[in-house]
Structure formats: structure tokens, C-alpha cells
């Protein structure tokens, strides 16, 4: 991990309130799927922790973020050619398993982005990859084509039914009768809970309000599900944890 000034090569809207930013950094190849960068936003104090969505080549990486407040609104105004400061890569990454028949990637909203880099890594070992994406509505859908281009079998669910299966990712999994039991999941808490109720093998990644992003300040902790006195830092031991590891 290190802090670095990087050049933005693209910052475009890809769905409702959702932006994709590509940055040029010579150390992009050190980034692993599931890790994040802490992004400095001009005029704001605390950095914004945003997951690494794709490392398309050794010199570039991509983040996808949603406008949820003033900081991300400001970030959306950054232009290609601008320099921003990032700190990373931070946190744990999704472990890669080559001893399973297939994997199921489940993403909800802005929990979808880190799964794309994971799918790209798994493509290299020709893993059968199912992808189920959940969004509020059709306008919010993104990355369906990107996953398809990687050869994944992709299903989309929207809560209002305006695109794909009406309902949650769990409804889409049922509708498509996906039997894969090894899961990677990132998304809102209700989705994580539903996934955890059905699956026991695999990994989940979490988001949290953070300050340092590197494990020093103890802002983003979560208790261990089993051991009373054990706690985990989302930013350091996480954001990726085995399913069933943390209490949230």
C-alpha cells in the first residue's frame, strides 16, 4: 500500500447515479480482486473507500461508485486528465479456489464492481462462473455485458421488475435454478443476510464508514460471529471475509 497521485483517464456515468473512473498507475498490477483504494476528494477531509473493480492492464485500474453524498458528487465532476490522490491497495482480497466445479458471484448495486475483477481472474483458469446481479431498477443496471464478455453466465434481478427477474438476487438464483454452491458476494446488508442463510461456502465483502483505511483507527470494526472477544477490522482483515465469519 502507498499513497500516490494518479492521472484519471476516464470518469463516465454508466448507470443512474453510478460512475466508472479509470486511473493510470504503474502499480496497478499489485491490486487483487476485493481490495479497495481510499480516494481523496478535493475539499473533503476523509478519504472515500472504494473497491477496485477491474485491472484491465498493468498500468490502469477502474473503480465504480455511486453518488450517495457530497463527496461522491464532487468525485463525479473529476475530468479525464485530472490528478487525484489514492491510497492503496488496501485490505484483503477474494481467495481464488481452483478445486471447485463452478462459482457463483452475487452482487447488489455498488457491491457489483469488485466481482468483475474476480471474474476476470477466474476466467484465466477457465472456471465456470455464474453471475447474479441485483439492482433497484432497470436504470441502475450496469456491468451485465462486461461479465458476459468474460464468458460468465449472467442473470439480473431488479426490485421493481423493470429489467430481468422481478425481485431479489435470491429470486433470480431460484428462477435460473443455479446449483453452484461456492459463492462470492458483495452488496447491501439484507442481501448478505439472505445469501448467508442459503450458502455456507465462499466469501463476502463488506463496506463500512472508515477513517484511516489501514487498520490503525479502529473505526470500522465488526465482531466475530463465534468468538466473543474477537473483532475484525473491515479495512485490514477485511473487506473480504469467509461467509459466516463476522457479525454485521
Amino acid at each position, binding site marked *: *500500500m*502507498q*499513497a500516490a497521485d494518479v492521472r484519471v483517464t476516464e470518469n463516465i456515468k454508466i448507470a443512474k447515479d453510478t460512475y466508472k473512473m479509470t486511473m493510470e498507475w504503474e502499480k496497478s498490477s499489485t491490486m487483487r480482486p476485493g481490495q479497495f483504494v481510499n480516494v*481523496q476528494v478535493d475539499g*473533503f*477531509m*476523509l*478519504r472515500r473507500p472504494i473497491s477496485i473493480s477491474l485491472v484491465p492492464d498493468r498500468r490502469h485500474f477502474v473503480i465504480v461508485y455511486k453518488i450517495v453524498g457530497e*463527496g461522491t458528487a464532487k468525485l463525479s465532476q473529476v475530468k479525464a486528465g485530472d490528478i487525484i490522490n489514492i*491510497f492503496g491497495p488496501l485490505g484483503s482480497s477474494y481467495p481464488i479456489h481452483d478445486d471447485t466445479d463452478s462459482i457463483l458471484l452475487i452482487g447488489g448495486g455498488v457491491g457489483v464492481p469488485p466481482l468483475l475483477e474476480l471474474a476476470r481472474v477466474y476466467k484465466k483458469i477457465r472456471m465456470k462462473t455464474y453471475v447474479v446481479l441485483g439492482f433497484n431498477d432497470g436504470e441502475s443496471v450496469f456491468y451485465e455485458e462486461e461479465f458476459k464478455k468474460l464468458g460468465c453466465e449472467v442473470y439480473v434481478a431488479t426490485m421493481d421488475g423493470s429489467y430481468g427477474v422481478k425481485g431479489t438476487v435470491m429470486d433470480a438464483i431460484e428462477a435460473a435454478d443455479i446449483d453452484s454452491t461456492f459463492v462470492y458476494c458483495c452488496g447491501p446488508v439484507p442481501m448478505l443476510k439472505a445469501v448467508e442463510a442459503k450458502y455456507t461456502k465462499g466469501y463476502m465483502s463488506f463496506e*463500512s*464508514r*472508515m*477513517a*484511516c*483505511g*489501514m*487498520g*490503525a*483507527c*479502529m*473505526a*470500522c*470494526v*465488526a*465482531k466475530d460471529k463465534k468468538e466473543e*472477544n474477537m*473483532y475484525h477490522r473491515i479495512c*485490514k482483515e477485511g473487506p473480504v471475509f469467509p461467509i459466516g465469519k463476522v457479525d454485521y
Partner: protein
Amino acid sequence: MDLRVKLPGLDLKNPIIPASGCFGFGREFAELYDLSKLGGIAIKSATPERRFGNPTPRVAETPSGMLNAIGLQNPGVDEIIEKELPWLAGFDTEIIANVAGATEDDYVTVIEKLNDSPVIKAYELNISCPNVKHGGIGLGTKPELAAKVTAMAKKAAKKPVYVKLSPNVTDIVEIAKAVEEAGADGLVLINTLMGMRIDLATGKPIIANVTGGLSGPAIKPVAVRMVYQTAQAVNIPIIGVGGITCAEDVLEFLYAGASAVEVGMYNFVDPYCCVKIIDELPKVLEKYGFSSVGEAVGKSFR
């Protein structure tokens, strides 16, 4: 340029000390730079037992600062002695143990356990934490309570005792004097200012603990004012803390009467800020006509 600062128990090679709670036990920052560059390190608060701390969310951003309510999460003094201090012994920097507790006896317990560690050079009493025996108020809010815990700590301590004062008081000078009279070897000021933020969408406090401590550049003028007032009223050294982001900020605190400084939340904004400030400080001191840190101390009232 002479950056050295000599304070009770502390032989600082420069006046820059990361503040307690913003630096853990240094392990994460050691991945970024050599901790031996620092004047000292105020390590994360130690309590007698392991503490998990407050529920999350524990932090919220504010204009020019942040609120935090971590709740003194720490592994407990025994584990700190066993695991963290031997590791910190490998660095050439002065380690200050921040001591916290829910009762006055907690402070004594922690100090007695840390007394034999050669790694710890001084104690810093955190008297802002809620005290269970005094209705949950901080010991730092009443002169007599602050003086009592200082006297108890001094009696137990085999190393100098600094007291970190709470700014959430009507008259910081009154507290400072009471603590000095009780035997404190130095003061650290200020701790965070109590604040609050409310989420516009939910109408509820953002921080689970409801209130949190405000830190960052937002509080710097308050900290400078309190150092300035206190420095003229006491005869013990002051370590200034509150919103420092650069070498110019350090000079401002020196002018106000601080002998050294702690850097807190800015470590989250720029994780290299302490070493950058150390690198910049000689140039800034020279620019304003000083050849040592000591020459600038208290210039605003001398």
C-alpha cells in the same frame, strides 16, 4: 537546525508525535515509513482489560474535521506489554503510553503494570473518558477530580506523568492548574471537542454513540487558544495537539506555548504527514528566523 526537544522523560529528536488513537501501535504506519523518524509515538489508550469499544458507525466526516466515538477499543494492558511493546522497542523513538480507565483505580492498575517496561518513557493520562464512579462524567471536567486522578497516577508512576486535558470545560486554565498542583510533569492539550452529526435522510445521529469527539483542522484555533492561555498560567511543559496538518501549524502551536506537538486525524488524510512535517519544519523555522524549536516556544506572549 536544532529540532531536539527535551521534556520530562522524553528526549525527542524532533517535536512531532503521532497522537494516541490515530496511530494504533504503529504497525500499519511502519509499512509506510521508518517510525524512528518520529520524535515520539503516543500509543493507543491502554485499559486494564481488553475493550471492544462502541458500536459502529464510529466516525463521521465534518467540515474540516471528523467526529469519532471509538470507545477506547484496545487489547488491554497485558497484551500491549506482551505483544506491542517488544515490537516498538525496535524503533529509536520515544514511546508515550496513553492511559485510560473507567475508574481512578484503573489508571493506577495500568500504570503499575507498565512501570517496568523500559519501552515506555512517559504516561499520558486520558481523563476525558466517562467515569463510572462519577456518574459517567469525564474526570477532566472537574478540577478536583482531575487533580485526584493525577495525584493517584503520580504516586503509582515510576515515569513522568502528562495529563491530556479535555477542552469540554468552562475554564481550561483552572483544570490545568489543579493538575499541575497535583504533581503532573506536563500537559497535553487538547483532546477532542464533543460534537454531533445527524443524517438528513434518517433524522438520526450518524454516530451510533450519538455524540463523538471532533478533531481535525476545525478545532485548531480552539487548541491554539487553550495552549496560549494555559502556557502563561502553568510552569510545566505543554504538548499541543489539535488539527495540525503542516509545519506552519506546528510553529503556531510553538508560538502559543507548546514545546512539542501531537498530530492526530491528519494521519488519516495523508498517512505520510508526520514525516512530511518533520522534513518541512527546519525550512519553516528558518524562514521565521529561528535556529531551534525551543526559540519559538511561547513567542506569542513573550
